[in-house]
């Protein structure tokens, strides 16, 4: 589903002495099937932004368009529930939302609320459990007996069981160890491709943004600071540094390399292996010039 923001502003506690502008005049368009990364500091408006994607918040001004659904200040759509069944949101530390007696029941909770049939739910659970890297034996266990990493996977399965068309991920790997982080991101990327999802990833990791995203939006103080494909955005370290964001480490290295050797290696989202052979190439060439 396409995602479009038209001049969206959001003010918390409008008309009170405590009012606080969280989003200001935000506009962007993301075509269906895109993997978008949203980056910015805490308080930059990221979490306010994603809460507009399934109508948890409605814009104070402007309009949000998700597929055929429109949300603006006048009306939350009548079919809000329908929208929520199509936009799955994995919040930060999603394991905190678990509450059922068994893993199976917790995963079924969402689809049941949206009126999915029992048989269909069972079918979906069978499909999702291996996809999120869980064992079927866990289905009848209490979610509270599982390890932190397993709990997170159960919570994610509960969102995926909605069969959403848009998947919103708010720092889904926070608190996991490096291997856990890697596995989780690979899993989401795999789902994104196989199910042709539109994925919105909120992250602090520039490395993940470079690796997975087709489109990057940098937020700063409630406004869109930069936008573009990862290559465009990340090859502008000055602009990023101005809002105290780093560029991915490879780009930092390429810059340092250029300063030192006077030869530039362009950033093409290359792998470390490719970079190594490029460096060798540059060094060899410099030698043969002399």
């Amino acid at each position, binding site marked *: 589903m396409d995602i479009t923001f038209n001049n969206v502003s959001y003010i918390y506690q409008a008309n009170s002495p405590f009012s606080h502008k969280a989003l200001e005049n935000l506009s962007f368009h993301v075509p269906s099937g895109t993997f978008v990364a949203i980056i910015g*500091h*805490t*308080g930059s408006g990221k979490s306010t932004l994603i809460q507009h994607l399934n109508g948890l918040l409605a814009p104070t001004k402007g309009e949000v368009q998700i597929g055929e659904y429109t949300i603006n200040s006048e009306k939350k759509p009548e079919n809000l529930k329908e929208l929520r069944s199509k936009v799955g949101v994995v919040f930060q530390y999603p394991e905190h939302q678990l509450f059922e007696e068994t893993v199976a029941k917790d995963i079924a909770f969402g689809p049941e609320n949206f009126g999915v049939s029992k048989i269909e739910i069972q079918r979906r659970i069978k499909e999702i459990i291996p996809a999120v890297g869980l064992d079927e034996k866990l289905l009848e266990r209490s979610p509270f007996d599982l*390890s*932190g*990493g397993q709990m997170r996977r159960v919570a994610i399965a509960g969102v995926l069981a909605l069969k959403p068309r848009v998947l919103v991920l708010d720092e889904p790997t*926070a*608190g*996991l*160890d*490096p*291997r*856990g982080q890697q596995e989780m991101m690979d899993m989401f990327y795999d789902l994104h491709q196989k199910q042709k999802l539109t994925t919105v990833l909120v992250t*602090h990791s520039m490395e993940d943004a470079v690796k997975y995203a087709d489109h990057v939006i940098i937020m700063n103080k409630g406004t869109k600071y930069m936008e573009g494909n990862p290559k465009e955005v990340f090859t502008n370290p000055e602009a990023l540094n101005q809002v*105290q964001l*780093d560029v991915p*480490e*490879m780009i*930092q*290295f390429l810059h*340092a*390399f250029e300063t*030192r*050797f006077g030869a530039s290696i362009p950033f093409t989202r290359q792998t*470390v*292996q490719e*970079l*190594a*052979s490029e*460096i*060798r190439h540059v*060094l*060899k060439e*410099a*030698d043969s010039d002399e």
Partner: protein
Amino acid sequence: MREIFIEFRDVSFRYGEEQAWVLKNVSFNIYKDEWVAIIGHNGSGKSTIAKLMNGLLFPQKGEIRINGVPVTEESVWDIRKQVGMVFQNPDNQFVGTTVQDDVAFGMENRGVPREEMIKRIDEVLNAVKMQDYRLTEPHRLSGGQKQRVAIASVLAIKPEVLILDEATAMLDPKGRKEIMRTVSDIQDQNEISLITITHDLQEVTQAERVIVMNDGEVWDEATPREVFAKKDALRKIGLDVPFIAILADELKKNDLMITSEPLNHDELLEELWTLHSTM
């Protein structure tokens, strides 16, 4: 030879009779005034080690000595004065209703006189650069600021070791940087040992020594440079390797004779430069 401060001797620990051993025969020393990083995958026993160090847990087998004194039910309150700890969740360790109340909490517990408290609150809040937030309530602080207050609270007790138990794990990159800057300042300016339990590679490379835990056992104990030289093995036990170390490895495969184990950009560029000029 440096003076030993913390000593683990064949320590084994499990949370219950029927449960698996979380730590198996763990032995190591931590010296005075040194910075040690403890790394390992989730569930490798890192955090258990931290809790054993100040008697929040006691081992079933083996012995732990702090400054030569075994950690027991009797010695534990003395030991907690020497071993300060900052935990992972910034919210769940903030006791006071304001910043200064929180810093005071540990001192109040130890019966520090009020005048002395006021003096130390000034000192430690300055040390973590939170002096302007003295009367601020916790819900108005960012995660990084809360953790700096937690560090200040520990420093106020004048401990001999500061343990950061994944204290940066729940912070954003900005908060993480704040904490690491604070911590390395403190280490520079005080005679204090520092133990950081972490996944963050930046934190690991800053340490003098690394203890790598895997499935409840000490897998390696060496300098960051030596540890990161074992890239493939590290990855196998679920850990990360810095970008520069990976790149150096790939360069070697491309017949560029990198000899040292570079850990940062400058080191690698320096090496490439030397290679380049001798080619």
